[in-house]
């Protein structure tokens, strides 16, 4: 089933330019946009079948046998990560239809968008480092080009170059880590590495410590973990808003996925990992939240808040129990929905006024009522209001910490939640409650396709908030599958 998802997305990458050319020649409005949304909606059908198959048999391996075990291996964790990627991808493609209508080069825009989604789905479903690196580079290269898509302005160009240099240096360091791991264990297959690292003598090997540090830096740059986060607050605001919501919503989560996967593969050595990760997590939370307080640009504020949310997820992973990992995975899904929605709403304001300055946007929620209400739902969800999805996963992260009797860490996390509520509610008050003035008086409601993109994500925020048990049961299955390394190895190496 996983190959059908990847084939559908790859088919989209190849055919979108042709359809776009036809729609330009014939002058059919929005044919390309409808087509790319259709292509991105198509993978949901194999995805549902995939989810049912995995809940029955555990791990899907494709192809069943291959040279060097270079395979796709999808377990519950991968399947759980694919869902937000497809959802935010579809929503941002629908949203782009009217957001990007003043831009040129839309054929390459939609091609790069579907290539990036293809790359992300491939990264989370790879079963060995070769496949992982291939899809990682597809994702990275298309995201560099998308961040700098509006290349005639200074901000995207500068941010895109900074992102490119940092991220490709991170990929190179990750590759060095992969090389060292290959030198030690002699295979690139995840299951093979997990089998080989079960020997406890490896824990004190300086090479494996070097390899783990290189991998933490490589994934940490992509996930924007604290000392490596400096590209994120520049690149995410500079990108077009649908791309911001993809980058912030799901692309940084591929770094999280890498950390999670290797945290579990090196389970025998996880004392080092957990400790280092929890320190990095708190650094990330505090830097993200405290810097977000002082932002005047709405998209920069949201970008810093993404850094803080990555800190929460990393903290949940560093605890390393089934409860905490499933809570972290649930927060990955919830944050993708909330942050995707918030970046899209901020983009709708930017589209209407041409400004991202919060002092200019004051009171705009009274003029653009629908967008304003959707933004309020997103802000309340991310601030952790009961009844919306953010509350569920934040509660589960804290309760998982308390179950392991990590009281200081739990208190610090709650402190961070409180700090973040301060700036979310202040933003809500300034956008929704102040009297509009100046340019804002003239704005009109966002176009229907932009609203449609946001409504998809908002309805999921509300659905998960009101009825969380379905997603919690999937994320618990994923958390159990993540820690049950034996049943991950057996179908791949035994079959």
């Amino acid at each position, binding site marked *: 089933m996983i190959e059908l998802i990847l084939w559908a997305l790859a088919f989209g990458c190849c055919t979108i330019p042709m359809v776009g050319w036809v729609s330009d020649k014939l002058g059919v409005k929005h044919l390309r946009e409808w087509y790319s949304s259709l292509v991105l909606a198509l993978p949901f059908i194999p995805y549902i079948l995939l989810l049912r198959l995995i809940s029955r048999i555990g791990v899907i391996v494709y192809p069943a046998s291959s040279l*060097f075990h270079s395979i796709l291996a999808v377990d519950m964790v991968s399947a759980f990560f694919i869902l937000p990627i497809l959802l935010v991808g579809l929503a941002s493609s629908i949203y782009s239809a009217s957001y990007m209508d003043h831009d040129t080069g839309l054929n390459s825009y939609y091609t790069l968008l579907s290539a990036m989604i293809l790359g992300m789905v491939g990264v989370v479903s790879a079963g060995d480092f*070769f496949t992982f*690196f*291939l899809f990682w*580079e597809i994702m990275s290269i298309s995201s560099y080009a998308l961040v*700098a898509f509006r290349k005639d302005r200074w901000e995207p160009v500068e941010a895109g170059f900074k992102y490119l240099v940092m991220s490709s240096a991170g990929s190179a360091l990750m590759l060095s880590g992969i090389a*060292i791991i*290959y030198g030690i264990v002699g295979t690139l297959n995840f299951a093979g590495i997990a089998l080989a690292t079960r020997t406890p003598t490896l824990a004190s090997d300086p090479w494996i410590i070097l390899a783990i540090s290189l991998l933490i830096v490589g994934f940490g740059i992509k996930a924007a973990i604290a000392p490596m986060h400096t590209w994120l607050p520049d690149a995410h605001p500079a990108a077009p808003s649908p791309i911001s919501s993809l980058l912030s919503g799901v692309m940084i989560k591929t770094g999280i996925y890498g950390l999670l996967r290797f945290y579990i593969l090196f389970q025998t050595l996880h004392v080092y990992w957990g400790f280092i990760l929890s320190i990095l997590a708190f650094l990330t939370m505090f830097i993200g939240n405290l810097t977000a307080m002082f932002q005047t640009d709405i998209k920069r504020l949201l970008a810093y808040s993404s850094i803080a949310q990555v800190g929460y997820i990393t903290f949940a992973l560093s605890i390393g129990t089934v409860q905490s990992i499933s809570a972290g995975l649930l927060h990955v899904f919830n944050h993708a929905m909330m942050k995707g929605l918030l970046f899209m709403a901020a983009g709708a304001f930017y589209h209407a006024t041409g400004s991202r300055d919060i002092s200019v946007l004051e009171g705009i929620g009274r003029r653009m009522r629908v967008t304003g209400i959707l933004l309020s739902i997103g802000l309340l969800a991310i601030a952790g209001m009961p009844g919306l999805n953010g509350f569920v996963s934040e509660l589960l992260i804290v309760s998982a910490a308390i179950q392991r009797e990590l009281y200081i860490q739990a208190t610090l996390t709650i402190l961070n939640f409180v700090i973040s509520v301060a700036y979310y509610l202040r933003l809500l008050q300034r956008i929704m409650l102040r009297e509009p003035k100046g340019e804002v008086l003239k704005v009109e409601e966002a176009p229907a396709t932009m609203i449609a993109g946001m409504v998809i994500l908002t309805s999921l925020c509300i659905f998960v908030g009101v009825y969380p048990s379905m997603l919690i049961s999937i994320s618990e299955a994923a958390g159990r599958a993540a820690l049950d390394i034996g049943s991950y190895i057996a179908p791949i190496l035994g079959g």
Partner: protein
Amino acid sequence: MLEPILLCSVALIAVALYGFYSKRHIIKMIISMEILINAANLLIVTFGAYRAPGYVELLPQSLAILSISSAGGVTAVALALMLAVYKVYGTVDVRKLRRLRG
């Protein structure tokens, strides 16, 4: 024979980091990036050649070829961005790209 090549790879990483921190021309920065990726490639090929004595393994070589080709893609995007930087800023000095505060 393993150690000299590993030292060479470490030296390449050092050269690349020196380039990142001290050079201000964008093309020199892109070259540093390439050197860093090549250091990783050298490491991969070395481990493939010397891990088991007597024969050279195939998987690391194919990984290195994949990495070389993806580095080509990254460099292409980087050079395209360099052109855009030159058009917008009128210079290719990295120190002038300091308007973002990140």
